[in-house]
């Protein structure tokens, strides 16, 4: 859920593993399997940085929301707003 919030924080941008971990506060052991599942379900697409632009360090892998992912995650967030379990999260919207 926290991951969903973090990704939807910038629906059209590229997301990096470590940054997502920081934003969502989820450990990488939890985060990566979630990302993998979202990839498998077609909610995310991935890619690698252009090596020419990284200045010597290895290219990182990034994740982007797909159209489907935007719809699914959007729906998830809306339904989560009315769910008591997630009241502590900043989900935006009415509350």
């Amino acid at each position: 859920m926290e991951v969903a919030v973090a990704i939807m924080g910038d629906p059209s941008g590229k997301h990096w593993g470590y940054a997502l971990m920081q934003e969502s506060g989820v450990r990488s052991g939890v985060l990566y399997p979630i990302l993998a599942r979202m990839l498998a379900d077609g909610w995310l697409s991935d890619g690698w940085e252009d090596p020419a632009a990284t200045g010597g360090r290895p290219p990182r892998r990034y994740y982007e929301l797909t159209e489907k992912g935007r719809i699914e995650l959007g729906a998830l967030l809306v339904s989560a707003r009315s769910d008591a379990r997630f009241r502590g999260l900043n989900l935006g919207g009415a509350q």
Partner: protein
Amino acid sequence: MTDFLVGGSAWWMLPATLLAVAVIFGLFPGVALRLIVLLYPKDDLRRRELVAELYTLDRLQRIEWVFQQLETALFEGLSRRLAQRRERRHLEQAEDPGLQETYETLPSRIDDGQRPMPIRRSERVTPEAWEDQEMRNALAAREVSTIYKLLRRKGVSQRQIAAMTGQSQSEVSEILKGRQVMAYDVLVRIADGLGVPRGYMGLAYDEVTAQRVAERVAERSETPEAEEPENVKRRKFLAHAAAVAVGAHVLGADSGSWVSNPVLRPVPYRIGMTDVRQVEAATRALRSLDYQYGGGFCRDAVVAQLSWGEQIVSAWGTEVVKQRLHVALADLQNLAGWTSFDVGLIDSARKHLGRALDFAKAGESDELVANILYRMGRVYLHKESPDLALKLFQLGEIAAQQSGSELAVAVICANQAWAYAMMGHEDQTMKLIGRTRDEFARANHGEAADWVKFFNEDDVYSMIGTVHTVLAQKVDSRHTKYAIPALTRAIDSYGDEVTRSRAVNLSSLATNHLLDGNVNHGAKIGHQAVDLARHFNSCRVQDAMMVLKIEAGKRRTNSDARDLADAISQLYEPDAS
């Protein structure tokens, strides 16, 4: 992680090796991380991905990152690696030309960069996995949670289980945590998905189901001319029952025409207690379904289960095992007969009950013999032959007394009372009601066998109510004043799990109110009964509703009564109206 750095003083107490590791992690996180990612499978993208992330971070973050990855890699990377190795083994086996199997390759994106995972359509879990004793026990008891745990122990992942059974991973995880699976169709799906031989879980075999269908068709196509006259059948049946109850009737002797011996296929293995427990567990599960939904819902499953049970009778086993198997099968046949009766297949009911009696005798269970005779009697009560029913109950009482179960005697006395009531013998009825109460009071309920345990105080009241309802109709309408309180009490205390009894009692209660002249109230209760009966495919409910319909029909001048009669007609003969 921060404890690791801050709690410096404690550090010196730790072994030197740990310190060295920490230093390496701290000073050369890149080296450490590269070592860690080696835990992931060779072509896993994480190997590159995680290292790349490292170089965008500052020093402290790097150390944290490395530690997190160590944790993740140990759990995730390692387990994936093992999974891959298993898959490879499977593949090698499958390349054996003797095995013709289809492979299905999941979309390669299933897990970022992981090798496409082949899933076998058949034999997804090796068949030997089901033969292990612990597994057989879990299957027999239908403890899906234990089954999954054992699979996990054999290295099958939650995701694989989920893919095979068509469940979501979270469902699988909940089951692993102990959630029970009861629904028959879900059990079937799990068994089929995993490739468990259905019989091991006490579920119907497909070919057996086919056999059952054939049997049923044969039943329907029996032409009236070819049938023995009903009275001949009854006489033979009673003779058989008497021979079993009193004499030295043994299994395999001529059981009469209603016991058609199913074709026994050779069974290749010896049977043990596990197989018996399997039959027992299946019977228990199906019986609880029967209580809940009425016989129509589970008769097919019972009959299918039965064919399987009959097959293992011919297998080799110790005397103790055999005896218990006979009792288990007697109980299953008994249930088959009872559910057949419930859906109106009277001949089939007779057939199963006859066979049940043979098994019960072979298993030397007097208590079960009593129970079966009681059920046979009930079949005849339904067929409006109280005299024959009475004889069966009397035979049953002998067996019940031999078994030493007062509760069984109580059940049978109550039913004798019913039979007498149907014959219009008021005095005999009241005498037997009295005996029912006495025997019930004396009974040791804790020690009673499963199938008489059902008879509790509510059932005593229900029977008293039923019997007085019959007397009120046949002899004297003043009996309603005994019937109404008894039925009300029974209805109030029946829980949801015995909806059928509730429906029957509501219907009888409505009948009483009609007989009492309290037509509007009776009609109201009658409609409640109709609403409940809608969910049932049950002969016993229908019997009670028909009585109510007759009484309502006599009062057609009252619009409520007329509505009720019409509603009942609608329910059972929608074409006629």
